[in-house]
């Protein structure tokens, strides 16, 4: 009897760790679905799930979707999932820097090798400059959508500054204005905020005069730009990307940069440093203008959230952000999001600086950057049956009426392939992007093809650490920033 009790308790003790470990692998036994989508964009989690449910309803295939919260990097989780037995058939890839890993590991299916007719048509129709390609001929992803960024401006604020009804003309003229004209605009508005001087400015030949009396709205302004000074991407990534467009057409072009191309970044990067010096001299703060210095890069008061708040509370005229900031701005001020528009980020470039297919400095300064932020990739290691279901889903999502409804309405995306003339969204910023696309005034995102971390963690961080606390920047500083960017690019490529 005592022996029995002993054996029994031994069994219990042994079962404990086995049970607790088994919990980790529960879902290993039988997948129970035909398609597993790993979604890297947390913002569209619910909409994608709804779309997947609708697809299941129409085709009878069971679909599992998985998304992490927005703003979290899902790469580590994706790697773990790709190592597991039930790996995802569709997963997302952000850009060609990230593609390297999945191409080399044999996970990304080259869409140009696919024979399925419907899918081949979809893959062939992806515009060439939007392809996720490592060598110019292959293609590894179907775009989620397109996004764009520039200086966001509230048209009501424009009316408040320059008189009722001036916004429409202002937007057109500010878009076409030269860098010098833009500079004068900033200086004039700054003088108006600080000293009430109602000056006139010329934009693309048209004269705009500031109202003699500030309105309720314009008296809230504390500066011209809302800047997330403590975040290093503020100085790398999107802002420097505008300068990179002077040399590179797209990320693939940047990834395959020649020595001559890298050297020719000198002019654009110097112009970028000059523009950054100017921009950071006219920053808005919570209670008044902010000057460069320790306060400027204070992580508790000058981060992304505070910049968005400053703009949403009408304390700044411009904020450099993309249409993805829409919901964050709306959270703070429901009213302002209805009247937002983009104007391009401008740089003091000369035509000699611009060697890419954009061709002229004027064209570059009137364009906003529009690009694919995320791609659906198909797992090459999945079974043929799984791959077929994945292709059917992507074709359905991007071409069928019910699929497109989810893309434009539920996910609130600007679709990459739609006929833009017939599309308006509820999102003012997306509409602004669509207009720029219609006019053909768009540039790409070559920074996505720069060496990994070059833009934010290296160049952006260097600028933040060494220059943002300096009151005055000199010509040597501009040149040093450009040289640093070039030498690091060469070192890291």
């Amino acid at each position: 009897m005592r022996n029995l009790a002993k054996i029994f308790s031994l069994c219990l003790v042994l079962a404990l760790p086995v049970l607790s470990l088994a919990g980790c692998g529960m879902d290993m036994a039988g997948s129970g679905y035909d398609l597993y989508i790993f979604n890297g964009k947390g913002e569209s989690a619910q909409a994608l799930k709804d779309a997947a449910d609708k697809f299941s309803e129409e085709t009878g295939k069971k679909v599992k979707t998985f998304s992490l919260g927005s703003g979290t990097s899902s790469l580590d989780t994706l790697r773990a999932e790709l190592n597991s037995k039930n790996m995802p058939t569709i997963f997302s890839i952000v850009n060609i820097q990230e593609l390297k890993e999945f191409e080399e590991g044999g996970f990304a299916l080259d869409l140009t090798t696919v024979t399925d007719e419907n899918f081949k048509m979809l893959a062939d129709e992806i515009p060439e400059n939007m392809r996720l390609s490592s060598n110019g001929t292959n293609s590894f992803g179907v775009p989620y959508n397109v996004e764009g960024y520039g200086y966001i401006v509230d048209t009501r604020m424009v009316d408040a500054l320059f008189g009722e009804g001036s916004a429409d003309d202002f937007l057109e003229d500010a878009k076409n204005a030269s860098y010098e004209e833009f500079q004068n605009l900033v200086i004039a508005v700054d003088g108006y905020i600080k000293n009430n001087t109602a000056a006139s400015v010329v934009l693309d030949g048209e004269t705009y005069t500031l109202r003699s009396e500030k309105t309720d709205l314009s008296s809230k302004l504390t500066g011209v730009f809302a800047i997330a000074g403590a975040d290093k991407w503020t100085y790398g990534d999107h802002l420097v990307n505008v300068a990179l467009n002077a040399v590179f057409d797209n990320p693939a072009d940047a990834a395959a940069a020649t020595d001559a191309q890298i050297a020719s970044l000198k002019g654009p990067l110097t112009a970028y440093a000059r523009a950054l010096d100017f921009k950071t001299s006219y920053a808005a703060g919570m209670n008044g203008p902010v000057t460069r210095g320790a306060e400027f890069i204070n992580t508790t008061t000058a981060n992304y959230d505070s910049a968005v708040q400053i703009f949403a509370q009408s304390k700044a005229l411009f904020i450099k952000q993309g249409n993805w900031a829409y919901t964050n701005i709306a959270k703070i001020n429901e009213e302002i999001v209805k009247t937002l528009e983009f104007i391009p980020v401008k740089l003091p470039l000369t035509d000699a600086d611009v060697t890419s297919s954009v061709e002229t400095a004027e064209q570059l300064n009137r364009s906003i950057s529009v690009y694919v932020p995320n791609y659906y990739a198909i797992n090459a290691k999945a079974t043929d049956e799984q791959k077929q279901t994945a292709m059917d889903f992507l074709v359905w999502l991007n071409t069928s009426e019910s699929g497109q409804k989810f893309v434009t309405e539920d996910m609130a995306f600007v679709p990459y392939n739609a006929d833009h003339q017939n599309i308006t969204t509820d999102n003012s910023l997306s509409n602004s992007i669509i207009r720029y696309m219609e006019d053909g005034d768009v540039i790409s995102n070559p920074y996505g093809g720069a060496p990994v971390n070059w833009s934010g963690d290296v160049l952006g961080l260097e600028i933040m650490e060494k220059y943002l606390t300096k009151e005055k920047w000199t010509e040597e500083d501009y040149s040093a920033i450009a040289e640093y960017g070039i030498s690091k690019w060469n070192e890291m490529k």
Partner: protein
Amino acid sequence: MDKYYRKWLLPISLPALILFFAVIVIPFVTGVLYSFTSWRGTYFAGGANAFESFVGFENYVNAFKNEKFLNAFVYTIKFTITAVIAINIVSLALAMMITTVSRGGAIYRTVFFLPNLLGGLALGFIWQFIFQNVFSDVLFGPQGLIHIPALTNMLQDNTKALFALVILVTWQMAGYMMIIYITGLNTIPRDLYEAAQIDGAGALAQFRVITLPMLMPAITIVFFLTLANCFKLLDQNIALTDGNFNTRLLATQILRTTRDTAPPDYGMAQAQAVVFFVLIAVVTLVQLYVTKRREVELH
């Protein structure tokens, strides 16, 4: 009793052993193995399995050629030395104060121990606010109580950030170490001090000749804990500066290696982790050996 333990030793310790093997030993051995391969997180570059993509010591060579790793290495050592000294002085001072106060000792003990209950990330963000706003503006800024430039904007400079981190971990760990020191102090027989007083020894001499030697067992434990914890510090480093201004500690550096490289070089990150392990193991073992030898026993 002895028989009882002999009989039940295996069944009782088995669950712990199985868990220890499953979550520590096996991953550790796999990790060491991976540090000799070109593991990329989801696949082995240049081969189908670990053995085909064996690269020898290449990952280790690359790690030591990596400027960021070397920076983090030196910075971690500088930080650990400063922090261990600071924590020990503060916690011993607190312990001696508390053992001499006649009333309210328990309250002080609780208060000093409290910071230890906070998690590293939360603590980091709290201190980020203190350093950036309270220190930089309210207390030591140009318009503050007393203007001390060295204590303003501590997170925006490599050296200042080191001391900022030391202040943080001292605040966090001193309370815990203080408890160990109090226990140690309480085991010292009072008559030793009485005898010393009769012989005419002053407070300093008493501390040097009686307190320190008698406290050696506690010092061994405290040194071991602070050394190991400071070497391994991660959350606070990330929350406070996120490695900006070259302030990455080794743990942060290892974590970020896969983000610094594309495709992610998990092999090299793993090699750094092995170096990290060896470093901590050697330093703490040497420390244990040295302090143990100084322990005195009363016979």
